[in-house]
């Protein structure tokens, strides 16, 4: 494994705003919903691809308390709108899907560490799995605006879970589409066409967003090919603002020490080579502070 491109380090943190956003539009896109919010305070030029928003759904009589995180698909400072693409998953997203224009949601955005755009023009492959494609169009635009080049690999389980194919084709001649069941594009996984996509533009960077196993596989391929791999991870979040520590994953720092880092503040975009993919959902023994967990065997009465 040889790395032709040194890791990028510049991350762009902007202060998030909290606003009661009015739903301007909510409409189906394939199996997903496109949600357009009036939120001028959040829809600033500071929003970068990879930033996310955290929504509080339901009023004072709602039993679902926690925020829901969604990648910002597009923020339009002129229109004062922020767009999300969301899937119905559990109680909160199902309730959100039943909302109507004019209803309100409480939005905190922009949040998190976006995809890096520094280090000169990138030749980047953008890999999106399912709604993970949501941030890819604006990421492509930003890379192109900085004089770079882009290719796309967009995948999903089924055709109706593919997102952003038309937008991608408008931005690049190199668009690969795959589905698990072959209902659109090639049958297979994003890792199938990825080497060809990287080769086509002699990629310096691969940016990916989608399920964890995909991010790991993409990082392996990209790294083997000498490209940098930046991955937008998805860990269950309660707050999205860095308060609760629920969204951690094991990430190895420049000092070689692995720590549980919050994906809502240190991420969601991480250098894929720093994430200990195989150790997510475990407590690796070499983690900083892991030893302190073991003096006593875990008890059922062990609180937070």
């Amino acid at each position, binding site marked *: 494994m040889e790395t032709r491109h040194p890791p990028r380090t510049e991350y762009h943190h902007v202060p998030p705003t909290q606003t009661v956003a009015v739903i301007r539009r909510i409409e189906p896109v394939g199996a997903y919903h496109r949600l357009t919010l009036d939120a001028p305070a959040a829809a600033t030029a500071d929003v970068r691809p990879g930033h996310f928003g955290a929504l509080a759904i339901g009023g004072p009589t709602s039993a679902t308390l926690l925020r829901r995180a969604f990648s910002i698909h597009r923020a339009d400072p002129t229109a004062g709108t922020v767009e999300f693409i969301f899937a119905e998953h559990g109680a909160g997203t199902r309730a959100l899907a039943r909302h109507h224009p004019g209803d309100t949601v409480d939005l905190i955005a922009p949040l998190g560490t976006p995809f890096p755009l520094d280090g000169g023009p990138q030749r980047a492959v953008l890999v999106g799995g399912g709604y993970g494609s949501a941030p890819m169009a604006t990421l492509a635009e930003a890379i192109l605006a900085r004089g770079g080049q882009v290719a796309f690999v967009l995948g999903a389980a089924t055709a109706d879970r593919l997102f952003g194919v038309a937008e991608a084709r408008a931005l690049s001649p190199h668009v690969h589409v795959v589905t698990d069941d072959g209902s659109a594009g090639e049958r297979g996984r994003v890792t199938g066409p990825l080497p060809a996509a990287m080769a086509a533009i002699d990629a310096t960077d691969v940016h990916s967003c989608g399920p964890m196993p995909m991010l790991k596989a993409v990082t392996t391929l990209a790294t083997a090919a000498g490209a940098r791999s930046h991955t937008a991870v998805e860990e269950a979040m309660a707050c999205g603002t860095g308060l609760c520590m*629920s969204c951690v994953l094991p990430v190895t720092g420049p000092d070689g020490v692995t720590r549980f880092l919050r994906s809502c503040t240190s991420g969601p975009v991480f250098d894929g080579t720093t994430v200990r993919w195989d150790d997510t959902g475990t407590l690796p023994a070499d983690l900083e502070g892991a030893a302190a967990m073991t003096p006593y065997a875990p008890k059922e009465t062990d609180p937070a």
Partner: protein
Amino acid sequence: MSPRHPTAHRDPIDPADIDMSAPLGARLTLPNPVLTASGCAGYGRELHRFTPLHELGALTTKTVMPYARSGRATPRMTETPSGMLNSIGLQGSGIDHLVTDELPWLAEHGARVLVSIAGERTEEFAETAARLAGQPGVVGIEANISCPNVADRGLVFACDPDASFAAVRAVKAAAGPDLPVYAKLTPDVTRITDIAAACTEAGADGLSMINTVLGMAIDTHTFRPSLAGVTGGLSGPAIRPVAVRCVYQVYAAMRSGTLRPVPLLGMGGIASARDALEFILAGASGIALGTALFRDPSLPLKVRDDLRETLARHAIRSLADAVGLAHHQPEDDSRLRRTPV
């Protein structure tokens, strides 16, 4: 306003005239009663973007131990009806980090800091507390005794009066005379007043109630516990009735003379000024916001300001006058009669 209202006969007063200060014992009065709950606002940096820390009554830090702790594996959190379960497992960088990197920043930003500490042994409580005397911005210590005691085969300190007594006494001794020590209790006990008694006998300057309620959830798709840690702590509005009951019971015991009176910090499911008032009426001199911050990190100032309005509407001139009012029979409410309007 209901006819049963104890202050129905009084005219509302100007909110600006309300004394919002929260007396929390001989060595501590906060400018307002709204704190953050430990573990729900980290060390303050993230919350500061939404709520300027100096506006809080105080910030309670995430519980800190003598050493770094990784916390538990994920998933660490799951939502439940009007609540959540967490098994973060006290992730933190340890007391050195707090003292070196966090307290100076907090002091610089005008935060009053209640440092939550814990240990797996009584000595670890003492070791951590000893580092805090004289530190900038630190106004007190919260001893999170709702954590497992290695010497007692993992039984939570706050589940046992003797272990509670030992931990609190050790913290008091180590903290020195200037830092008030609050003991944080778990509701998961048969008689919370027994634990409260052990803590006050050990010299606690106050009590924080409540920590999370032990719970669990099972993922009905995978058939496995939803949390990697199997059980976790239930928090949020779901547990508010349990928390109010604990505060009420302990305050009642203090009123009746069976417990040495100390100020109480109430927490557990507070999401509005109404909820905060519920704890104050039950006997809390200050209140802390936890899980509600995850939904609304701007909440503390709303609660503070709405509470002020509410007191004004009820013609209660000072927050301190509202403490424990639910224990007074309307007819024998000397405290209300004493308040001049």
